């Protein structure tokens, strides 16, 4: 059965890659003048797909932390912000401060900044994680919430460095070599989703290893994990560091996507939205991450574009109400999230079909027996 799960994971990665490449190819080659957004009735655009990809990277990390290690984080947007600001500040050094000319404006500098951002965020998560992860449940939630808010506020301070609440602009696009720029969107889409797929593969590898087992053990019974030889404190911190580094990576990609960085997208509300996406997608599987992000975005875009047609009302408040109602309905009928809910439903229909078939088979063999005698 373990092999079945591994095979499904491989199939999932392959299918995802094929779908992503196909959709991207449509946008690049525009067969018969069709663009990607036409395929979705102008509801989902390339812009949305890139955002989904970026947030998937954050969510895979959050899934590892909350779904597998069982540690809640209401401040994940803080790590996301650290990555965005690291990339934003470092890659605009040459332009804003006129230093490191020739180095800080070369094509490889932003890539280095992304890695530097991940390292800094990882170290920060390690230092903060050791004390914070001694807390449990609501206390941990409050501590991570506070952490996220602190980072958000810091982002708005020191306008010389961070650009204050208006943020900084002029973040360059990423390029490979001095001539191949990863822009316009069709190209950036492939970079973002390439990274997302690699992150998914790495997360799946971790989950199916002794590390993944240790995390799942910690989630269910920390005392049993400890007395079975698992250093629970260390693994909780490792899960936090990994999730923070993924969030930082996503933040950097976001900075180069927006070409600007400001504190707004990294507020407490953003952290809550991440947790909502994780819950809707399903916390017990890494696949819950892309699904969760995708579903939320599609719902939001659907509401935005079809609200008037269906409900004959217009405006942000109605969007919010409908959106909230949909979330509540999903959590009522599939409290474990979509991926778990759907797999359970599929298994049920599969079992029912097998039952019906065997019942039908028994009925026919009965009738043939009686007629024979």
């Amino acid at each position, binding site marked *: 059965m373990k092999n079945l799960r591994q095979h499904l994971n491989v199939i999932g990665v392959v299918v995802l890659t094929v779908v992503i490449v196909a959709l991207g190819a449509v946008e690049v080659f525009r067969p018969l003048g069709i663009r990607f957004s036409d395929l979705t009735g102008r509801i989902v655009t390339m812009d949305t797909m890139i955002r989904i990809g970026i947030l998937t990277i954050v969510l895979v990390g959050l899934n590892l932390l909350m779904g597998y290690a069982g540690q809640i984080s209401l401040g994940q947007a803080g790590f996301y912000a650290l990555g965005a600001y690291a990339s934003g500040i470092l890659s605009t050094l040459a332009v804003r401060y006129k230093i490191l000319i020739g180095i800080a404006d070369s094509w490889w500098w932003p890539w280095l900044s992304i890695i530097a951002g991940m390292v800094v965020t990882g170290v920060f998560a390690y230092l903060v994680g050791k004390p914070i992860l001694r807390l449990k449940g609501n206390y941990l939630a409050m501590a991570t919430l506070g952490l996220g808010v602190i980072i958000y506020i810091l982002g708005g301070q020191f306008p010389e460095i961070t650009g204050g609440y208006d943020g900084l602009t002029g973040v360059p696009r990423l390029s490979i070599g001095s001539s191949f720029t990863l822009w316009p969107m069709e190209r950036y889409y492939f970079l973002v989703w390439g990274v997302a797929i690699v992150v998914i593969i*790495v997360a799946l*590898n971790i989950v199916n290893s002794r590390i993944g087992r240790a995390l*799942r053990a910690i989630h269910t019974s920390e005392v049993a994990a400890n*007395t079975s030889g*698992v250093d629970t404190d260390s693994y909780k911190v490792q899960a936090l560091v990994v999730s923070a580094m993924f969030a930082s990576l996503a933040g950097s990609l976001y900075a180069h996507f927006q070409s600007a960085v400001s504190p707004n997208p990294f507020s407490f509300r953003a952290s809550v939205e991440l947790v909502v996406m994780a819950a809707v997608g399903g916390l017990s599987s890494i696949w819950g991450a892309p699904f969760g992000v995708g579903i939320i975005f599609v719902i939001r875009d659907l509401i935005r574009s079809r609200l008037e047609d269906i409900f004959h009302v217009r405006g942000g408040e109605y969007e919010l109400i409908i959106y909230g109602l949909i979330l509540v309905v999903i959590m009522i009928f599939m409290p474990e999230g979509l991926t778990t809910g759907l797999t359970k439903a599929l298994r049920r229909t599969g079992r029912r079909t097998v039952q019906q078939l065997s019942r039908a088979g028994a009925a026919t063999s009965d009738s043939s027996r009686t007629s024979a005698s």
Partner: protein
Amino acid sequence: MNEAILKTVDLRKEFGGVVAVMDVSFEAEKEEILAIIGPNGAGKTTLFNLISGVHSLTGGEVYFKGQRLNGLKPHIIASLGIARTFQNVQLFGNMTVLENVMVGRHHRSSYGLLAAALRLPRAWAEEQEIMAKAREYLSMVGLAGRADLNALSLPFGQQRMLEIARAMATEPEILLLDEPGAGLNRLEKEELTRLIEQIRQGSVTVLLVEHDMEFVMGIADRIIVLDYGEKIAEGTPAEVQNNPRVIAAYLGEEDVAFLRP
């Protein structure tokens, strides 16, 4: 005479004003089966928690093969060679039967986050080893055929067996069993008795907390009796049975019948 593999000296545990364990001293000999009995609330599970590092000691010392265990974290104590099961079975419900036992192999393997993330050959090789060893321990408790079922889907008696398999997978020298017979029927208890004997044959010292006196009398080499956190008697089953302090402690309890056959 075998040397003491486990020694406690004046073990004490206080929770606020309550003294759960009061200056308990005893020794466990290598490869013996030592039972710890006493009325409810006598401090038996707390004693196990102190030895396995789950609770910090308020006073006293614990020595394992001469090494002082005071202040060591539970996972370190586990890796040194003391494993345990729990009164209310603590299985990992989000994993299969086999995976539960594989967690027991955790400290006998070493590959880390990077090797796991990149699926290095070293990680793969260790995984095969972990899986193979885990299957061995599953076979020992008779659950080999149920390896891929979810752990909580097992009937209760088998869940207890699974917990023992997981504890044994850590390759301990001492096994602490906390009421392993609770909730088992007579047949299952016979199986459990055989398993504990088999474990002792494998050079493991077994300490068990139990309430079923018939079961305890049938398997224990020696018995320690606790009452209100204090050790009130120690000796062979026959000696303990006739100890007036022990009889007095159990008066009013349902098990008092065992004392006078």
